[in-house]
Each structure stands twice: as structure tokens, then as C-alpha cells.
């Protein structure tokens, strides 16, 4: 930027100022979004003695003790495995059953179709607290309390509206001629769905699967209510009930929260576009 001010002050300077301002604003936004999570990461690397004094913001002698403690002293590893089983099974079920339903809504004649879509939208909006008392009694009556199956059933149900909405909009983009060509060739509707409709809609299926997985991995109220012991406890519940005798062990807690968040951060890094597409699918296009 060694320009003679007498020549270039006008547009050149303006551009520099604008770029500087823009960079500063973007950095502020990034700091606001990242800061709290970064602070948690810094905390997780500090030994206990360094947690109770602040002037050194960055750890002078970083340690992995908290991560070791989280996996050896607490059941977090087991709880994360529970979370993984629940989230993966719920995703598979919601996508499987959701595809069948979305295909029907997109391509087959069903009376009251718009009613069904409206119903799904309504269900995705009503507060979980409005169903929790009955669900608790129902799950207890089925003898499913404190089982992974209970969580899988509930998470699948509450992820279905989302999955069906996203999938229906993607299935509608697959040309109708493809479907009828398969039918004329002698495929049953189900066979046509699997071999003709699904393949071109794979990006949409991935979007729906990501959103369902993230929902199930993060879900808290049902997981808290329907589990009682380590047997079926999921990771978010473990974070909420993190053991601490008198004072919360902040270093261990920081390590635990990061470990639980790591899978979804990984998904965000790998599939940022798909997740954003899923978030915007319903509201902007619809």
C-alpha cells in the first residue's frame, strides 16, 4: 500500500477504510460466535490450580488430565455410546419411515394430504412439555422406562415431521416421468421409490439425516425424563447432571462438554452446506 496520497487518496483510501471496517465487523461476529467455545477449550486444558486465578488467560502448562478424568472417572464414554446408538437408530428409522410417507405425499394419491402435511408442521411446533406427562405414563405402562428403545421411539416420532417435510420437497423435484416409466416397466410403487425416486434425491436424504441426527444427539427433555440410570442415559443428560460434590469441577466439565460437542462440530465442518440447505429448505423455498 505504498501509494502517493496526492494521487490515490480518493477511491483507494475509501476502499482501505471500508475493507478495514468490514474485517473488524467480521472479526467481531466471529469472536462472538467462537469465543465462548474457545474459552471452554482453553479451560479444559488448564490444570485445576490454574482455573482459580485468572490473569493468565492462556494455560501456562497445558494438560490433558481433564480429558483423562472424564473417560476414566465418569461414565461419559458409556453415555456417549448410548447417544450414538439412539441417534443412529432414530435417524435410520426417521429416514426410512419418513421416506415412505414423504413419497406417498409427493407422488401417490392420498385423501387429506394437505391435512397430513399441516399436521406434521403443527407437531414440529408444539412444545414437548405439552406431551411429556402422557408420554412418561405411556412409556412406563409399556415397561420401557430407562431403555434406549423408549428414546429411539420418541426421537423418531418427533424427528418425523422434519424428515417428511424435507424429503417431500426433494422427492417432488424428481421428474414424474421417471416414476411412471418405472411403473410401466412393471415396478411396484415401493420398488419404483427405491430404484428410481431415491437415487436422484440422495442429497436431500443426506440433508434430512443430518438434521435428524443432530436433533437426537442434542435432545434433552425427553432423555432426562425417560431415563433414570446410567443404563440408558444419553450424553446431554450426563452433562446436565455432571457430578460435583460441592463445586462443579469446571476443568472436567469443560473437557466433557467439548467431547460431547465434537461429533456435531465434525458434522458441521464436513457438511456445512447440507446443514444450511436443510435449515433453509422449509422457510425460504416453501
Amino acid at each position: 500500500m505504498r501509494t502517493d496520497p496526492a494521487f490515490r487518496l480518493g477511491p483507494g483510501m475509501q476502499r482501505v477504510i471500508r475493507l478495514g471496517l468490514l474485517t473488524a465487523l467480521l472479526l467481531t461476529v466471529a469472536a462472538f460466535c467462537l469465543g465462548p467455545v474457545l474459552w471452554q477449550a482453553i479451560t479444559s486444558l488448564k490444570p485445576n490450580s490454574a482455573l482459580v486465578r485468572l490473569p493468565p488467560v492462556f494455560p501456562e502448562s497445558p494438560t490433558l488430565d481433564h480429558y483423562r478424568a472424564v473417560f476414566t472417572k465418569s461414565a461419559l464414554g458409556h453415555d456417549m455410546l448410548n447417544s450414538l446408538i439412539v441417534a443412529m437408530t432414530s435417524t435410520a428409522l426417521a429416514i426410512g419411515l419418513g421416506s415412505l410417507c414423504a413419497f406417498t405425499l409427493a407422488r401417490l394419491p392420498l385423501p387429506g394430504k394437505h391435512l397430513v402435511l399441516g399436521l406434521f408442521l403443527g407437531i414440529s411446533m408444539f412444545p414437548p412439555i405439552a406431551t411429556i406427562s402422557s408420554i412418561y405414563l405411556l412409556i412406563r405402562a409399556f415397561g420401557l422406562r430407562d431403555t434406549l428403545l423408549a428414546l429411539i421411539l420418541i426421537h423418531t416420532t418427533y424427528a418425523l415431521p422434519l424428515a417428511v417435510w424435507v424429503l417431500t420437497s426433494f422427492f417432488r423435484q424428481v421428474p414424474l416421468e421417471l416414476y411412471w416409466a418405472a411403473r410401466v416397466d412393471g415396478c411396484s410403487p415401493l420398488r419404483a421409490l427405491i430404484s428410481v425416486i431415491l437415487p436422484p434425491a440422495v442429497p436431500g436424504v443426506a440433508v434430512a439425516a443430518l438434521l435428524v441426527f443432530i436433533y437426537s444427539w442434542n435432545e434433552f427433555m425427553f432423555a432426562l425424563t425417560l431415563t433414570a440410570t446410567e443404563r440408558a442415559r444419553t450424553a446431554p443428560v450426563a452433562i446436565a447432571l455432571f457430578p460435583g460434590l460441592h463445586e462443579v469441577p469446571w476443568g472436567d466439565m469443560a473437557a466433557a462438554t467439548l467431547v460431547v460437542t465434537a461429533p456435531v462440530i465434525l458434522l458441521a465442518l464436513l457438511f456445512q452446506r447440507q446443514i444450511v440447505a436443510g435449515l433453509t429448505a422449509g422457510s425460504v423455498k416453501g
Partner: protein
Amino acid sequence: MANASRPSPFPPQSGLARPRVKLTEQVWAPVLASPALLLIMLFALGPIVGTFWLAFHRHLPIFQVYEFIGLRNFSRLLTDERFWSACGTTFYFTVVSVALELLLGLIIALLLHGPLSGQHRSASTMQTDAGGRMREWRVKDWIGVVILLPWIVPTVVSARIWEWLYHPEYGLLNYFLVKVGLVQEPINWLGDPISALHGAILMDVWKATPFVAILLLAALRAIPQDLYLAARVDGAGPWATFRQVTLPLLLPVILIVLTFRTMDAFRVFDAVYVLTGGGPGNSTETLSIYAYKTLFQMLQFGYGSALACAMFGLISLVTAAYLLLLRRQLQA
């Protein structure tokens, strides 16, 4: 909703749509849709009806009490000060956090859209070298991931993160505020009713602003570039362009985002439950938390269900209002 206007997906009078084929479709449709609908009936619609049913009963599971008491739970609501205080807290939390999220989200969306996409640039700088553009793309991608982060972090985790930031002795927030000189001595953020509620709001703003920004950014990108060009030809400045072009076209999406965010903020549970547990006192107790505590700590299933029903009613009213607004907007 908007799909309602779509024509029937069934093929027009093409030679392929023979009656026999259509008949097969009519048999398959309910079969394929039924597993999903069955789950919805069993675990979503059924329980809603069940909750309303429970609300007319006195049900204390541990004492085996289960009796019909008509509307007495609802008349108890009217005189329950804790219910009204929870209503106030919920409304305040919703209005303040959604307003802030919309404002900040709009600013971030405009920031990410305008300067980075090149539409506000003069024609000459729009043809920058390929290298310059490449770099801009990369910045945009990174910002995209960074912005997604707060939204994607489990709510329970974000509550724990902020609890630590707000820590009276070792929290980063107090450290900064004291260092900068804004406050003389550390504040016990979560120990005071007013600051605890605003602390919860700040956490919600942190978490949900990205969602708003992402949706508004997508809407901004859907606005045809010719409109901006036309505005520039007409000599409109940036502010006039925003008022006359951007805002009107953004309004439907803003309303949809407002609806989503209001529903979410109104039913807030995990974030506040883990951050403050509803305290200090009951100062941050929202309707969801009060209903939850009544159900699973006091084990009053009848009254707890009545609280949940009241909340369901309130949320339906708010949604209906938004839908009316949205419809009027779409018709205009």
C-alpha cells in the same frame, strides 16, 4: 403450507395413467404412509389428547391418586402467582431475545451478503482478479462454519459454557469487565434475579442468532440482482435501496423466522433449566420449567398437565396471530 397451491402430482391425461395403475397407487398410498402416521398418532397426537385429559384430574402417581376434578386445576391456575410470574418471565424472555436475535441476525446477514457477494461494488471492482475472488470465497466458507457453531452446539452444553463464563470469581466476563473498568468489582451474574434473566437471554441470543442470520442470508441471496441494478440506475442510495428493495422482499422470510424463533423461545426449557434451574428464587422460571417441576419434582401430574395445556393454548394463540400476519403479507 405454500405447497398447498401445487397442482396434484398425479399425471395429467397422459396415456400412462391407466385406471388399473391408479388403483394400485390408491392401495399402496395408505400402506406406505401408515408406519409414520402410526408413530405420530401414538407418541405425538395421543399424548396431546392425554395431557388435556390429565388436566381434568387430580393425579398423584406415588399416592395412587387419580380422580376427576373437572375444571378445578384451571381455576387454580388463575390464582396461582407462580404461574403468572412464569408467564411474565416467558413473555419477557421471548420478546427481548427474539427482538435482539432478529436485529443482530439481520445485521450479520447483510454484512455477509452485501460486501462479500460484490453487489455493492462498482462495476470496475466487480471484475477483480480470480485470486481476490478465491480468497473471498474462502472467507465466506469459514464464516459459514463459525456462524453455524453456536446453533449446532447442544443446548445443554451451551448452558454449561455460559455458566462458566458468568462465574462470579473465575468467570471470563467479570475478568474482562473489571479489566476494562466497566465495573468496579465482580458481579454475581446468576445470583441476582435481574441479571440472571438477562444472562439467560444473552445465552439464547448467542445460540439462536446464527439460525436467524443463515435464513435471512439465504433469503437475501434469492433476491434478483436486477432489482439492485434498477435501484442504482434510479439513483437510490444504500439506505433507500435497503428500505425500498431489500426489506419488502425480505418481509415474508422475516415473518417466518419470527414465527420459528418465537415458538422456540416461548417453550424454552433445557437452556434455562441447566443454566439457572429457574432460580434465583423463581426469577428465571419459564412456563416450561414450572410445568416440568410440577410434573416431575412435585409429582402433580394433573396440575402439571393443566400448566402444560395453558402453555399450549398460549403458544397456539401466538402462532395463529403470526399465521394471520403472514397470510396478509403474502396476499399483499
